[in-house]
C-alpha cells in the first residue's frame, strides 16, 4: 500500500513524537542552565581553561550517568553490537571540541552578539544533513516543511534579537571582524555536521547513553590537545590549572548540567530526528538569558527598547519551538526514515527488525546484558567524591544573585528533568 503525504500518524508515532519534543525542550532548559555556574567564574580565566574545565566535568559525568542508568555490561554490549559506530562517536566528539574552540575565538573577535546567531545556524545545517542523508522531511508534505523550516528560522531570528539586545560589546575591532565571522560560521558548520554521526548512530539502533560514553573521549582528547597548543605546553597548562583550582567546581557543575541537557538532545535526535530536535534544543539561549537576567540582573538599568527586543526575541523563539512541536511526522515521512534505517542495516549487516524495535523505544539489549557489577557503585562514588572535593575547595565570588529566581528556575529545570526522565523511562527504559 502506498502512503501519501499528509497521512495521519499512528498512536505509537505520535507518542514518540511527543517524547522527542519534550526531550528537545528539556535539552534547551539544561543546556541553558549549564551557563549559570560558569557566570560565577571571574573574568581573567583563559577561555581555553574554562572550556577544558567544563569538558573535564563533562567527562566525569558522561562516564557516570550512563553507567548509573544502564550499567557497564549494557553499554559494552551495545558498543560491541555496533562497533563500527565507535569511530563515528569519536569523530563527533572531535567536531564538538574544534567548534567549541572556534566559538572562543569568535567571541574574542566579534563579540557574543554577532557570534552567537552565526553559530546557531548549526540547526539549519543539521536540518539540511537530516534531509539529504537521513530522509528527514521526505514525503512530509508542504505544511510540515513550513512548520519545521519556519520554526527553525524563527528560533534563529529570535536568537539574533536576544543576542543583539543582550550585547555589552560596544566596539568590534574592524581588522578582526572577518576572522570572527569566519570562526562563528565555521563553528556552526562543525556543530551542524556533528549531528550526522548522532543520527547515524540512532538509526542504527545505538543507545544514546552508549554513544556519549565514546563521544566524550573524542571531546576531551581534542580539547586537551587544543588547550596544550594554545596554553603553551603541559607545564604552562598545569600551572594555569592549579591557579584556577578554586573555581573548578563551578565549571564541573556547568559541565554536569550540560551533560544532562546533551543527553536529552541525543534522545530528541533519536526520536524526532535532527531537523526537529536540534532547533528545539537551541532554545537553550532563552534559558541562558532567563538565568542571566533574572538571577544575575544582567539587564538591570537597560533601556526600554532593549527590554522590548528581549521580549520580542523570546516570543519569536517560543513561536518557532511551538511550530516545530506541531509538525508531527506523517506515516509517509516515517516510511522514508525507515528506508534510511534499512540502508544502514544493509550496509553494516544489522538486523532491521531489531533496529526497528529499538527505534520504537524497545530495548532488546537490556534483556541480554548481564547484571550490575559491584565496582559500578565505586565509580559513581568516585565521581561524587570529585565533585564534593572540588566543592570543598571552591569559593564563590561575591556576585549578587536573586535567590527567589534561582529557586523558580531551578524548580522549572528540575521539573523538565523529572518529567522527561519519567517519560523516557516509561516509554523506552532509556533506550
Amino acid at each position, binding site marked *: 500500500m502506498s502512503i501519501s503525504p499528509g497521512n495521519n500518524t499512528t498512536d505509537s508515532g505520535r507518542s514518540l513524537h511527543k517524547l522527542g519534543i519534550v526531550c528537545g525542550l528539556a535539552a534547551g532548559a539544561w543546556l541553558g542552565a549549564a551557563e549559570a555556574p560558569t557566570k560565577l567564574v571571574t573574568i581573567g580565566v583563559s577561555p581555553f581553561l574554562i572550556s577544558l574545565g567544563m569538558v573535564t566535568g563533562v567527562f566525569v559525568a558522561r562516564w557516570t550517568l550512563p553507567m548509573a542508568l544502564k550499567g557497564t555490561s549494557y553499554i559494552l554490549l551495545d558498543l560491541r553490537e555496533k562497533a*563500527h559506530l565507535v569511530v*563515528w562517536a569519536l569523530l563527533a566528539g572531535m*567536531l564538538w571540541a574544534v567548534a567549541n574552540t572556534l566559538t572562543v575565538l569568535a567571541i574574542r573577535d566579534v563579540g557574543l552578539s554577532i557570534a552567537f546567531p552565526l553559530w546557531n545556524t548549526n540547526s539549519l545545517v543539521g536540518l539540511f544533513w537530516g534531509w539529504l542523508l537521513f530522509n528527514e522531511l521526505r514525503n512530509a508534505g508542504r505544511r510540515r516543511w513550513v512548520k519545521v523550516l519556519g520554526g527553525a528560522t524563527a528560533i534563529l531570528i529570535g536568537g539574533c534579537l536576544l543576542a543583539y539586545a543582550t550585547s555589552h560589546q560596544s566596539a568590534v575591532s574592524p581588522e578582526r571582524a572577518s576572522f570572527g565571522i569566519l570562526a562563528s560560521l565555521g563553528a556552526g558548520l562543525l556543530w551542524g*555536521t*556533528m549531528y550526522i554521526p548522532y543520527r547515524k548512530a540512532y538509526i542504527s539502533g545505538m543507545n544514546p547513553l552508549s554513544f556519549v560514553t565514546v563521544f566524550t573521549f573524542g571531546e576531551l582528547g581534542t580539547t586537551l590537545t587544543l588547550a596544550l597548543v594554545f596554553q603553551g605546553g603541559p607545564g604552562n597548562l598545569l600551572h594555569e590549572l592549579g591557579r584556577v583550582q578554586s573555581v573548578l567546581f563551578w565549571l564541573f557543575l556547568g559541565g554536569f548540567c550540560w551533560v544532562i541537557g546533551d543527553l536529552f538532545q541525543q534522545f530528541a535526535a533519536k526520536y524526532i530526528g535532527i531537523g526537529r530536535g536540534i532547533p528545539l534544543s537551541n532554545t537553550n539561549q532563552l534559558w541562558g538569558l532567563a538565568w542571566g537576567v533574572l538571577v544575575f540582573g544582567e539587564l538591570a538599568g537597560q533601556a526600554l527598547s532593549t527590554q522590548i527586543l528581549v521580549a520580542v526575541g523570546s516570543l519569536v523563539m517560543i513561536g518557532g519551538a511551538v511550530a516545530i512541536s506541531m509538525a508531527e511526522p506523517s506515516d509517509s515521512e516515517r516510511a522514508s526514515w525507515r528506508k534510511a534505517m534499512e540502508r544502514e542495516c544493509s550496509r553494516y549487516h544489522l538486523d532491521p527488525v*531489531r533496529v526497528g524495535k529499538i527505534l520504537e523505544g524497545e530495548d532488546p539489549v537490556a534483556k541480554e546484558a548481564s547484571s550490575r557489577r559491584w565496582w559500578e557503585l565505586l565509580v559513581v562514588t568516585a565521581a561524587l567524591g570529585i565533585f564534593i572535593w572540588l566543592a570543598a575547595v571552591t569559593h564563590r565570588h561575591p556576585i549578587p544573585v536573586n535567590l527567589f529566581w534561582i529557586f523558580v528556575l531551578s524548580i522549572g529545570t528540575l521539573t523538565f528533568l523529572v518529567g522527561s526522565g519519567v517519560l523516557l523511562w516509561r516509554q523506552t527504559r532509556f533506550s
Partner: protein
Amino acid sequence: MAYPVRDGNHLIPTMLKSILTDLHFWLPVVVLLLGVTLLAALR
C-alpha cells in the same frame, strides 16, 4: 533472526569498512579538517 553480536577481533576491520566504504563518513571528516585549518589560521 538472531542478531550477530560481533566478535571483538573484528572490531578493527569493521571500523575500517566504515571509513573506507561509507561516503557519509567523509563529510564530517572533511568538515573537521576544514575546522582545524580554520582554527590554525585564526589563532
